C-alpha cells in the first residue's frame, strides 16, 4: 500500500505541475473607472486550512445554516419588473418557507409568509401572478394586498374572534438593482447596508434596462454551496471547460474580497496561456467581436489586440447602437465582472448582459438544491424589450442549459457524492480559489460568530 508520504517526491511533483507563466493582461487603472471600483482589494489572510466537508453533507450543519444564515440575511426574491402594478406578486420559496412579495397600491412592495393563519394552508403556489386579494382556497379566509384580514367566513362562529394580529405575518422587503429582496429576519439591517458595496459596483450597469431572456430552475443533486463554490473559481476552466481557454484568461484573475461579498474580474476576448496561439480567431471570440460590431473576417490585427479593440469599438459605437456605456470602464465592456452576493447570488456581469444564478437549499436534504438561472440582455434605446420567457423547472439532465453550464451541472453530482465518502475530509483550496475560502469564512462568521472558526478547527 502506498501510504507513506515519504514515498512521494514532492519536488518532482511540483516541477511537473506548475502553472504556466504569462504576461499580465492590460487592465484599466483605478482612476480610469468612473464608478465601479477597479482597484484590487487587499487579499485577506484566511490561512490554508482544510474546509471540512461536513458543512456540505450533514443535516446538523444544514439546520445551523437555516437558523443562522437563511433566516438572518437578505435574500433575492425576484424581479421588480415582474410586479409593476398593484396586486402583482411573486411567490418564491426558500427552504421550508414560502413568501409572497406584493406590489402595493401606493407603489411600494411588502412581503409576507405565504401561510393562512387559519389552518396553515399555503395561499398561493410558487410563481408570478396578480391578485385583488389573497383568498385561502381551503375555507376562504381572505387577506388584502397589504396582508390585513379582509374577510373571515362565519367569523361569528369563532367565540375567540379573529386572530389577534392584523393579518399575514409580514417580513422585511426592499428593492435594489431592479430586484426585490426579502428577509426572514424581522431585525435585519437595512438592505443597502447588507449589500454594501455591491450597489456602488453594480448600479453603473443599469440592470433595469436589461430584459429577462431566460428563467429556469434546475434541481441539482448537490449542496447549494457546492454550486456556489463551482462559480467562485476559474481554476476549473482547464478541467471542465476546455473550449473557454480560447475565450478568456483563466489565470490572470483579479480577486477582490469585501466584507461579506466578493468578486473576480476575468478578461474575456483573449486566449489562455494554457493553450498555444491558434492560427485563426477562435469562434467564441468572433462572437464577442460580432457583438461589438467588428467583422472578424475584416480584422487583421494580432489576436492579443482583439480585447482592446473590442473595448475601443464599443466605446466609439455604443451610443449609436442605443447602448449607454458611459458609466462603465473599458474593461467592463469586454470582461466578466463576476460577483457573489452573499450567500447565494452569483452574477456574471457584462456591459450587454447579465447571467445570474440563485442557489437555494433543498428544504430537507443537504445533498440537493435548486439552481435558478436568470439571464438578461441590455435592450438598446428605442427597441422593444423581448417578451418575458416562461419559467421552467426541470431536473438536471432532462434538458440542456447550454454547453458551459451543462459541463458544470454534469460535474456537480459527482462532487457531492465524493464529498460524502469517508475517504474525503474536506476541500484542499489553492490561491486561485480564494473566493471559496472567503465565502466559507463569511459562513463561519454567521454560523459560529464573527471571526470564529468551526469548533475543533485549528
Amino acid at each position, binding site marked *: 500500500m502506498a501510504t507513506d508520504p515519504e514515498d512521494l517526491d514532492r519536488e518532482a511533483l511540483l516541477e511537473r505541475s506548475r502553472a504556466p507563466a504569462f504576461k499580465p493582461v492590460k487592465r484599466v487603472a483605478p482612476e480610469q473607472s468612473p464608478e465601479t471600483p477597479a482597484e484590487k482589494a487587499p487579499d485577506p489572510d484566511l490561512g490554508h486550512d482544510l474546509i471540512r466537508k461536513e458543512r456540505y453533507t450533514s443535516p446538523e450543519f444544514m439546520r445551523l445554516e437555516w437558523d443562522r444564515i437563511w433566516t438572518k440575511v437578505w435574500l433575492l426574491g425576484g424581479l421588480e419588473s415582474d410586479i409593476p402594478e398593484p396586486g402583482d406578486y411573486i411567490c418564491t420559496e426558500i427552504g421550508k418557507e414560502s413568501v409572497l412579495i406584493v406590489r402595493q397600491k401606493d407603489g411600494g412592495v411588502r412581503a409576507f409568509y405565504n401561510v393562512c393563519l387559519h389552518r396553515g394552508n399555503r395561499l398561493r403556489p410558487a410563481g408570478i401572478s396578480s391578485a385583488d386579494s389573497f383568498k385561502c382556497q381551503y375555507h376562504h379566509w381572505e387577506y388584502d394586498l397589504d396582508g390585513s384580514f379582509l374577510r373571515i367566513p362565519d367569523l361569528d362562529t369563532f367565540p375567540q374572534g379573529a386572530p389577534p394580529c392584523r393579518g399575514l405575518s409580514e417580513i422585511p422587503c426592499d428593492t435594489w438593482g431592479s430586484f426585490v429582496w426579502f428577509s426572514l429576519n424581522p431585525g435585519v439591517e437595512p438592505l443597502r447596508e447588507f449589500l454594501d458595496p455591491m450597489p456602488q459596483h453594480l448600479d453603473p450597469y443599469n440592470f433595469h434596462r436589461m430584459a429577462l431572456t431566460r428563467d429556469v430552475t434546475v434541481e441539482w443533486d448537490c449542496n447549494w454551496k457546492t454550486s456556489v463554490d463551482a462559480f467562485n473559481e476559474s481554476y476549473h476552466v482547464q478541467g471542465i471547460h476546455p473550449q473557454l481557454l480560447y475565450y478568456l484568461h483563466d489565470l490572470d484573475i483579479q480577486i477582490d474580497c469585501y466584507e461579506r461579498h466578493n468578486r473576480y474580474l476575468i478578461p474575456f476576448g483573449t486566449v489562455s496561456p494554457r493553450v498555444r496561439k491558434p*492560427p*485563426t480567431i477562435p469562434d467564441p471570440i468572433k462572437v464577442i467581436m460580432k457583438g461589438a460590431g467588428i467583422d472578424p*473576417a475584416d480584422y487583421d490585427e494580432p489576436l492579443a489586440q482583439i480585447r482592446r479593440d473590442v473595448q475601443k469599438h464599443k466605446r466609439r459605437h455604443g451610443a449609436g447602437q442605443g447602448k449607454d456605456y458611459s458609466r462603465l470602464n473599458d474593461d467592463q465592456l469586454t470582461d466578466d465582472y463576476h460577483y457573489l452576493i452573499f450567500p447565494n447570488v452569483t452574477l456574471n456581469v457584462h456591459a450587454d448582459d447579465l447571467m445570474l444564478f440563485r442557489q437555494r437549499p433543498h428544504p430537507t436534504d443537504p445533498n440537493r438544491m435548486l439552481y435558478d438561472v436568470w439571464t438578461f440582455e441590455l435592450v438598446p434605446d428605442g427597441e422593444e424589450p423581448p417578451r418575458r420567457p416562461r419559467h421552467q423547472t426541470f431536473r438536471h439532465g432532462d434538458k440542456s442549459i447550454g454547453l458551459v453550464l451543462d459541463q458544470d451541472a454534469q460535474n456537480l453530482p459527482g462532487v457531492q457524492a465524493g464529498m460524502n465518502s469517508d475517504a474525503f475530509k474536506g476541500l484542499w483550496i489553492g490561491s486561485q480559489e480564494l473566493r471559496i475560502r472567503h465565502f466559507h469564512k463569511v459562513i463561519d462568521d454567521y454560523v459560529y460568530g464573527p471571526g470564529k472558526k468551526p469548533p475543533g478547527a485549528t
Partner: protein
Amino acid sequence: MDLGLRGKKAIVTGATKGIGRAIVDLLAAEGCDVALCARSEDEVEAAVREVKAAGVEVVGGAVNVRNADEYKAWLEKAAEELGGCDIFVPNVSAGGGMDSEKNWWKNFEIDVLHTVRGCETLMPQLEKSGHGSIVIISSTNALETFYVPMAYNAMKAALITYAKQLSQFVGKRNVRVNSVCPGPIYFEGGAWEMIKSTNAKMYEATLRAMPNGRFGGPDEVARVVAFLASPAASIVSGANVVADNGFTKRVQY
C-alpha cells in the same frame, strides 16, 4: 532514393509552423537553402534560427502576403539572397470562416492571389533553374463537401484548376506545377488543436472519418510536397495529389 534536392533553392510562404514549417524543415534536411515568410517577426526570427541548425542558408521575412507590393518585393529579395529559386511552395491561407462576404475577399486575396502573384513573380527564376517546381497547397475541402459552404473551400478548389492550367502553360519552360490536397492535419498550434477544445463534436466526427483512426501530421504532407518539388518527380506535372489519410470518400479515377 536520392531526391536530388541538395543545393536547390526553395521559397515557402507561411512557414513558421504547421505544414509550411514541416516543408521547410524537410527541404533543409535534404540540403536545400530555404527562404520562409510569415506575418509575425518574432516567429520568423525563431524559425530562421531553428532551421539554420540544418546547416543550410536560411532567409526569413515578416511579410503580409495580402500586401502585393510588399510580398513581391520580398520574393525577389529572397530569390536574390538565395541566389535563385528552384522550388516555390505557396502555403499561406486565410483559413476558414463564414463571418461575412469579407471572407470571400480574404480567401481570394490570400489563398488565390498570393499563389498567383508568387508564381508570376518567381517564374523567371524558376525558368532559369531548369528544374523549376511549384507545389501549390490546396485542401481536401476543395474535393468534397466539408461542413459548411465556406469561401475557403471554393478558393482552394480554384487553386487546383490554376495549378493544372499553369502546368500546361509553363511546361515548355521546364517548370513543373503540381498541387497537394492535405486532409485534416493535426499539429500543435494548428486549427484542429483548437477545434478539439472549442468544438469537440466536430473534432470527434472528423477523427471518425479517418479510416486509420488518426489525423495526418504536417511531416507526412511535407514528404509528399518534398517529393513533388524534387527533380526525382521529373515526370509528374499537373497532378493533384491527395494526402489525406483516407479522409475523403470519393473514387479518384
